[in-house]
């Protein structure tokens, strides 16, 4: 029995397919999921999500969220998610620089805004890291 994986962000449905296996980064470490997995709810960390479909790997960068595994149906709710081939290094670097600049004089910003910027910086770092390893 195949697994179905769905990755959704507030902006769009990023990935939806039947797959063989997936490795998900969680706050408690990476977990690998095969068909027949026990029902599980976990927190997704910023990091690299590796899907194997028909023996071929697909790599995505995900930024924070939750995952639910239930009856071989995996739902990933991420703040951000992007497949590796869509990562645009120059755009990410620009975004990273913008966020860092804003953070430099962030003392006057409210905590929620600062947290948002920090998450942007983290996710940008993750994207660059993944892109440099998968070309």
């Amino acid at each position, binding site marked *: 029995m195949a697994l179905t994986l769905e990755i959704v962000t507030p902006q769009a449905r990023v990935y939806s397919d039947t797959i063989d296996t997936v490795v998900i980064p969680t706050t408690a470490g990476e977990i690998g999921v095969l068909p027949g997995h026990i*029902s599980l709810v976990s927190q997704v960390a910023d990091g690299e999500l590796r899907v194997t479909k028909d023996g071929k790997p697909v790599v995505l960068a995900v930024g924070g969220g939750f995952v*639910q595994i239930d009856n071989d149906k995996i*739902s990933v709710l991420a703040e951000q998610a992007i497949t590796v081939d869509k990562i645009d290094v120059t755009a990410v670097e620009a975004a990273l620089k913008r966020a860092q600049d804003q953070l430099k004089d962030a003392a006057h910003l409210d905590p929620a*805004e600062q947290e948002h910027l920090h998450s942007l910086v983290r996710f940008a770092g993750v994207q660059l890291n993944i892109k440099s390893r998968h070309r």
Partner: protein
Amino acid sequence: MASTRDIRRRIKSVKNTRQITKAMELVAASKMKKAQQAALAGQPYAQLLSNMLAALAPHVTDNLHPFLVRRTVKTRGILLITSDKGLCGPLNGNLFKIASEIKTPAKFYSIGRKGTQFLARTKRDLVADFSVQDRVPFNEVKAAVDFITKQYLDGMIDTVEVIFPRFKNTLVQEPVIRPVLPLDNLREFLAALQRHAGVVAADEINRNQPFEFEPEAETVLAALLPYYVSREIYQFVLLARASEHSARMVAMKTAKDNATKLVGELTLEYNKARQAAITQEILEIAAASFSA
């Protein structure tokens, strides 16, 4: 019959009105498109999140998180989401109708200036009002939600319910009241909603297998539940915005059409009056020349 000059003046004024409503219709239409896209794009995420919660709910014991505990309701907490500006047909009025039906003790929170004004006018217990920009940044909504959930946790209010115009399509916006907290009746509510939509509940959960949590349940729920609540209410605000712009566009289109119709009627009346005056004049000249 009114004089031709009076009619001419009225035609001019109605034409001006038509011009303005037409411009407002166009503005509302472009805003509507954006707001609708935002609301629809957020839909699958919000839906999946609710489904996740719904599937989880029966496997979680009440005392794991304060959001799950049902308390005796002494004071209801109502969040009223309205538009900042008027001229959007019956949209806000319908919401006020729901709000005024609440007779039990309640504290009110408001997003949108119209709702704030209404609550002040009807002397309701308005605790706080929040303004949210038109493009609805998540942070601004989150600030409001954090405030309300804090009141809930402090025991100031025993429920959190949201009144907002649910966007169905451009022509139909349905004013609804949705309970958000406590989360204990979430599953029934979702099931009812699905039945209402004519869909059989997607996966009637007939297995007794409990969910595993990683890390432990408290940690996951402590992160998931507040996040869910703010996402859910954020989606409500998006829907409310889409409804607002749709309602305004429709209202302005109706106003424009009415103005066009009125101009037509007035023009007819004007022509009649003009013709009557000419006929009158000819008659007078003819009568004068006969009698001479």
